[in-house]
């Protein structure tokens, strides 16, 4: 006999609201005249706001739902807000982008909303099957989004690549789940940690399961050596979608990684520690070194996002409440600066994304000082200069790492961030130190885009200068995970 309590529904209220709006936007899409499709974007934004309100309601009723498969705890609520923030900024940044590229279809917004639903479920699930479902929901939406510039060959390539490698990754993850179930007889994370308490229980099979699940997630995190798809997909996908892809699924995968490696598999100890250590080191180094040679801004940002995954992994490897809260803080900082940068790139690129080379930004600073200053803030924040969110994110992550005696890894990460300064500054150099006129200077930024950019820039400085509240929230959000 199955019973359903209201509490269960309240605990997934944000997801329900998002789904309703997603389906509504989709069904309404054929009924809306071509000239009015913008309205669907605003409706989707309304959905995001409604979900944010619903999350407040959810936070009053924390606890497990649906037989312990979903947890509405501080951790998941933190992530839900992060995803809603990302989705909101992406929608704001997309409306005019789609208009300009003649791709104004309501499905775009529906897919963003439904993808967000999947990510929310990934972060909130405490059961491997539910995690897998969330992973699939978010993946399938993003596969389609990646190919949204239908007439563009690169976009098609991106969608196909993302789809093939993504399915491959979910297969790995599912295979890992099967192993775990075979070993322990449960897919519940709490049950798992109860059954894998002793290090002696970490047999070869258990380790294989751990590695398989890590590989599955590593594709989404784009950590080395599972990052090969990232540059092509980020380059080919429409820039606002890239903004979404580079933050949403990555953050969701980090949520799962934290729940798994520091929760269910906490007793794996050295095995998971070394997996994290090695992939953090490789990811940082390769991401940064490869980014040095890029001339396409989108590819450059793709490699930079790989490198950032490496820094965040340092925090995961550090573990403990410090490490987790640092990772959570970093993810918000990363969301703001990456989404901001990609939205700016999307709008500077003109119709059909023609202007995405670094030299297309030549002399931008003196034609459009505000635009250039904005972009400079995003890049300086990505580079980790103080007073920006990027600096404090790194600062907290490295503090946690030093606390866990990961001195070698921290020094490596710090040197890596020096390397990264070089390529982030290449764009600043082009904008400020080279003379020339650029077509990118002629683009107009409509007010929704300006709003999204303003939110990102202000957020970056807010996190960088007065981090008391966000840091408190991230510390709070780290509480539900076992230490």
């Amino acid at each position, binding site marked *: 006999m199955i019973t359903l309590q209201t509490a269960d529904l309240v605990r997934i209220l944000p997801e329900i609201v998002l789904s309703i709006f997603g389906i509504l936007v989709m069904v309404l899409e054929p009924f809306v005249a071509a000239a009015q499709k913008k309205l669907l974007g605003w409706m989707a934004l309304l959905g995001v706001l409604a979900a944010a309100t619903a999350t407040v309601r959810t936070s009053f009723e924390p606890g497990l739902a649906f037989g312990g498969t979903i947890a509405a705890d501080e951790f998941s609520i933190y992530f839900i807000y992060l995803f809603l923030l990302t989705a909101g900024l992406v929608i704001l940044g997309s409306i005019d982008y789609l208009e300009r590229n003649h791709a104004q279809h309501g499905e775009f917004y529906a897919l963003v909303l439904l993808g967000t639903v999947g990510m929310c479920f990934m972060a909130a699930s405490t059961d491997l099957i539910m995690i897998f479902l969330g992973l699939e929901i978010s993946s399938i939406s993003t596969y389609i989004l990646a190919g949204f510039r239908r007439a563009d060959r690169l976009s098609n390539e991106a969608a196909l690549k993302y789809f093939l490698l993504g399915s491959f990754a979910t297969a790995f993850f599912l295979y890992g789940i099967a192993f775990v179930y075979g070993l322990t007889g449960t897919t519940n994370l709490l049950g798992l940690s109860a059954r894998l308490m002793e290090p002696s229980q970490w047999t070869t099979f258990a380790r294989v399961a751990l590695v398989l699940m890590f590989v599955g997630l590593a594709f989404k995190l784009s950590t080395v050596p599972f990052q090969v798809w990232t540059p092509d997909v980020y380059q080919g996908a429409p820039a606002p979608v890239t903004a979404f892809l580079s933050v949403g699924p990555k953050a969701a995968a980090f949520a799962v990684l934290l729940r798994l490696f520091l929760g269910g598999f906490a007793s794996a100890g050295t095995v998971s520690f070394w997996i994290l250590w090695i992939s953090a080191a490789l990811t940082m180094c390769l991401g940064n070194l490869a980014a040095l040679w890029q001339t396409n801004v989108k590819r450059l940002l793709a490699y930079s996002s790989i490198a950032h995954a490496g820094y965040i992994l340092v925090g995961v490897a550090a573990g403990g409440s410090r490490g987790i809260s640092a990772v959570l803080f970093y993810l918000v900082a990363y969301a703001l600066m990456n989404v901001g940068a990609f939205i700016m790139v999307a709008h500077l690129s003109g119709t059909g994304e023609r202007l995405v080379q670094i030299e297309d930004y030549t002399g931008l600073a003196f034609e459009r000082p505000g635009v250039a200053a904005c972009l400079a803030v995003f890049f300086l924040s990505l580079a980790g200069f103080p007073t920006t969110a990027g600096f404090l994110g790194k600062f907290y992550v490295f503090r946690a790492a030093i606390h866990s005696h990961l001195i070698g890894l921290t020094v490596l990460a710090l040197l890596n*961030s020096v390397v990264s300064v070089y390529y982030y500054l290449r764009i600043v150099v082009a904008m*400020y130190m080279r003379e020339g006129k650029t077509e990118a200077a002629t683009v107009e930024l409509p007010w929704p885009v300006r709003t999204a950019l303003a939110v990102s820039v202000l957020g970056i400085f807010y996190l960088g200068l007065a981090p008391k509240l966000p840091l408190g929230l991230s510390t709070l959000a780290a509480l539900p995970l076992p230490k």
Partner: protein
Amino acid sequence: MSWFTEHSLTIVTFFPLLGAVVIAFLGRDRTSSVRWVALLCTLLTFLMTVWLYFEFDSHRAGMQFEEFRIWMVLPPVNYHLGVDGLSLLLILLTGFLTPLSVLVSWSSITHRTKEFFLFLLALETGMIGVFASLDLVLFFVFWEVMLIPMYFLIGIWGHERRVYAAVKFILYTMTGSALMLAGILYLYNLTGTFDLPQVLDHLTTTSLLSPPAERWLFLAFFVAFAIKVPLFPFHTWLPDAHVEAPTAGSVILAGVLLKMGTYGMLRFCLPLFPEASRDFAPIVCALAIIGIIYGALVAMVQPDLKKLVAYSSVAHLGFCVLGIFVFNAQGMEGSIYQMFSHGVSTGALFMLVGMLYDRRHTRLISEFGGLATSVPVYSTFFLIVTLSSLGLPMLNGFVGEFLIIVGSYHSRALYAALAAAGVVLAAVYLLWMYQRVFYGDITNEKNRTLPDCNLREKLILTIVVVVIVAMGVYPQPFLRRMDQSVASILQRVEKRTLLFTERAPAGHLGAGR
């Protein structure tokens, strides 16, 4: 007034930034109001630093004008400002040089004027912040933030290879500071605080720090500062940055930014890691002396005036480092004095070279000759500044170098001998340069009709020369203000191994002359 006294350091630090904000809101075409706002703002800042200088109680050890506010709770990062004799002088120097830089750029910066002065003012906030911070993280924040305006100053208004120089400058400094950040985090992990006085307390009252850890930490901090100074093997960014930077950039770079390295050594390396400082002292002294000799020799063969001055900075900063690492009062006070006077005289040299460049758009020594007849006023100023830079008695350069040589003699006679050789070499390259540029016949016809200094330039140079002479004749007030700070730093270094027994306060030495 009491409100001002309580927040004086904050106001001094952020006042230039306020000016930058004002400039940001001024129209792009209103260049003259931009200039006047910049000048006014930096002058007011200078007046405030002078006020700080006179309000400073030189009999008290420890920090003054302290301000403390909680910035972040976990980890506990605080907004903690304060000055002692050491940072007071450097803040004064910053306050002094920035309005001069504004004046120097008055007519030579013709494009993107607004942005130029905006960055210059932002830079001043960063610099003062570095000297005033007493929290390790706050210090690091200012230390890094200050790089960005300097980077833009070099990169936008520099000469031909400006982008290369700007990127090299920022990457070198950031490599060092990355290591320093690791060191700061490690220290925090040991002591649980980023507050410098508290960290010092923890390290002196407990034995948290094992000798190998102390040595690693010393290196992490020291390399960051050594790159900034720059000490001999880390100096390669300096000639590029100096040569490519606009005049004001060079003045600030030589005058203030390089001092951040030596300041950091005095403020962090020595007090935090006394044992390691002693362990590494011979190596550091050797590097400093190599820097002195090498800088002088390379300066001698430079065909480019600005490069010559740049390499002379390597040599002069070698003196500063040497003075610090001989661990006695004379050496250290001499070193601090030398920081200040190098800021004034090398800053002035860069201004003079800049003025020449504005007229001729070249800095090659071979292009000049016989300028003494065509621009007599300029030549006179140049001579005085050159003499001050090579350490002529009665001028400012002498006091610092003399004290450093005396100090190093106490430590090891060989150091003193080699350093003195450096002084001789400085005389050689500076006077030889002066002779080639100003004496002889006018070889290039373009030099015959050069206009001499205008009123603005005369004003700048007169101020500088007055300071040069005043500092050379009457160094006592400056030395008195650093006595207590130097004594407390030395006390830390010598606490366990009392090697050096004679501890006459150097103030008396200064008074003796």
